C-alpha cells in the first residue's frame, strides 16, 4: 500500500508548485473577467466589437501568419540543404543556425533597429548608392515586426525541419530524378510532402511564438503597431486597466490553444489523405 503511494509523493512537490504558482494565479486573474454582477461574457464580446481592440487582435494574427509563411518558405530549402550536407559541414551549419537562437532576443531585435532605423544602415546604404533620395520609414512599422519575428523564429523552424529531413533517404531524390522529374519538381513532389510533419511542428512554434511575442513588437513596432502582448502590458501599466489586461491574457491563451489544435488537426487530415492514396 505504501509502495503504491511513492510515485504520487515524488510527483507531489512539482504538482503543488504548479498549482500554487501557475494555476491559482491564472484563475484568480482571469475568473473576475467573467463576472459583472452575474456571470457574463460581456468583457469578451465588447473586446471584439471594439474596432480599436479588434484591429490589434487582427494585426497580431496577420503578422504571425505572414511570419510563419516566410519561415516555411525560407526554412524548408535551408533545412534540406543542411540535412544533405556532408557530416563535417552539418555541425557548422547547425551552429550557425543555433547561435542566433541562443542569443538574447533583445540583442536580436536591437540589430534590426540599427539596420531599419531612419538613420539606419539600410537607409544610409541605399542613399549612398543613389537609390533613395530621402530615408524610408521602415522601423516602427508592421514590416519591421514581421522581419524581427522571422529573424527570431526562423532558426526554430530550420532546426525542427532538419530533425525530420535527416531521416529522408537521399536516394529518394535520385529515384525521382531518374524517373524524369527535374530537380525543382522532385523537391516539390517528394521532399515537401515528406517534410509536412516538421512544417506543422515548426509552424506551431513560430505562429504561437509570434502571437505572444513581447520583445519584438515592443522594440520594432513602436506606439502605433501594438500587438496583443504589448497591449496587455500597456493596459496593466500605463492605462492601469487590470480587467482589460486579464481579458487580453485569456485571449492570448485561448488563441495559442486554438492554433495548436488547428495545426495538429490539419496535420492529422493530411496523414489520413496520405494513407488513403498509398
Amino acid at each position: 500500500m505504501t509502495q503504491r503511494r511513492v510515485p504520487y509523493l515524488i510527483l507531489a512537490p512539482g504538482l503543488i508548485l504548479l498549482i500554487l504558482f501557475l494555476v491559482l494565479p491564472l484563475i484568480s486573474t482571469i475568473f473576475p473577467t467573467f463576472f459583472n454582477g452575474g456571470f457574463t461574457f460581456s468583457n469578451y464580446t465588447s473586446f471584439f466589437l471594439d474596432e480599436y481592440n479588434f484591429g490589434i487582435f487582427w494585426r497580431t494574427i496577420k503578422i504571425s501568419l505572414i511570419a510563419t509563411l516566410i519561415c516555411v518558405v525560407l526554412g524548408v530549402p535551408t533545412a534540406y540543404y543542411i540535412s544533405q550536407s556532408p557530416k563535417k559541414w552539418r555541425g557548422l551549419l547547425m551552429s550557425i543556425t543555433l547561435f542566433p537562437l541562443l542569443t538574447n532576443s533583445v540583442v536580436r531585435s536591437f540589430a534590426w533597429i540599427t539596420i531599419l532605423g531612419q538613420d539606419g544602415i539600410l537607409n544610409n546604404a541605399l542613399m549612398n548608392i543613389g537609390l533613395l533620395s530621402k530615408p524610408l520609414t521602415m522601423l516602427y512599422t508592421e514590416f519591421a515586426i514581421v522581419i524581427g519575428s522571422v529573424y527570431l523564429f526562423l532558426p526554430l523552424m530550420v532546426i525542427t525541419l532538419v530533425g525530420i529531413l535527416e531521416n529522408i533517404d537521399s536516394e529518394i531524390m535520385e529515384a525521382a530524378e531518374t524517373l524524369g522529374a527535374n530537380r525543382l519538381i522532385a523537391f516539390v513532389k517528394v521532399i515537401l510532402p515528406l517534410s509536412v510533419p516538421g512544417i506543422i511542428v515548426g509552424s506551431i512554434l513560430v505562429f504561437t511564438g509570434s502571437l505572444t511575442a513581447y520583445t519584438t513588437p515592443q522594440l520594432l513596432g513602436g506606439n502605433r503597431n501594438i500587438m496583443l502582448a504589448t497591449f496587455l502590458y500597456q493596459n496593466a501599466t500605463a492605462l492601469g486597466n487590470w480587467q482589460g489586461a486579464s481579458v487580453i491574457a485569456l485571449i492570448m491563451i485561448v488563441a495559442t490553444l486554438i492554433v495548436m489544435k488547428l495545426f495538429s488537426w490539419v496535420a492529422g487530415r493530411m496523414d489520413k489523405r496520405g494513407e488513403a492514396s498509398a
Partner: protein
Amino acid sequence: MRKNIGLKIFAGLVFAFLLVPLFIIIVTSFGTNSTIQFPIKGFTLDWYSKVFDNEAFMDSFFLSLQVAFFATLLALIIGVPAAYSLARHKVFGRNWIKSFFLSPTIVPGLVVGYAMYQFIVIKFQFPIIQGLFLGHFLICLPYVIRVVGSTIEQLDFSIEEVSWTLGCTKLQAFIKVVLPNITSGIFASFMLAFINSFNNIPVSQFLSGPGVTMLPTSLMNYIEYNYDPSVSALSVILMLGTIVLMYVIEKTLGLASIS
C-alpha cells in the same frame, strides 16, 4: 551530394540573413561616434568599459545569473525525480500529469509574469524577487521533464532490476544506478533551462522593481532612451557568453543533443 547551385545560393542567403545583423552589432560596438554608425569611422574599446561601469547593467547581470542558476537547480531537484516517476511508475493519469508539467510552455510568458505579479506580489505581498525566482522556475521545469524524461525512457530498465536483485533498495538504485546513467540528460536540461531563463524577458517584465531588474529587461529599458554603441558592446559580451556555452555543450554532449 551532387551540386545544386540554386539551393546552395538560397541557403547561403538565409545563413547570411541569420549572421549579418549580429556581425553588424559586433562592428558597431567598436565605433568612436556617440551614436551607432556603420561602417565605423574610428576604433575604440571605450564602450566596453562603459558597460562595466554601468551599475544597472552589472547588478542586473548578477541577478540574472543567480535567478537562472537557482531556478534551474530547483527545477532539477523537483523535475528529475518527477520525470523518473512518470517514466517508470504506473501513475494514474500519467499523460495528463506530464502535459500538466509541460503546461508552462503553453501559457504565454507575459501572461505567466502578469498572473504571478497580480496573485503573488499584489495579493499575497510576496517580495518581487521571490515571484521572479518562481516564475523562472516555471520556465525551467518543462525542459527538465522533457529532456531528462526522454533520457530515462532510453535507459535500459533491466540494469535497475539487476541492482534490486543484488540488494539495492529502490532509492539506492535510483541514486547509484539511474542518476549516473542520466547525467548527460541532466546536464543538457540544465544548459537549456539556464539559457532560456537567462534570456527570458516576458516572464520578468512584470516581476521587476527597484533593484530587482533582470539583465534583458534592463537592456530593453536602456534601449528605449539611448542609442549608443554600449548596447552593441553589451550585446557582444552576451554573444561571447553564448559562444562559450555552445562550445561547452559541443565538447561535452554535442550540439545535436539540445536541438
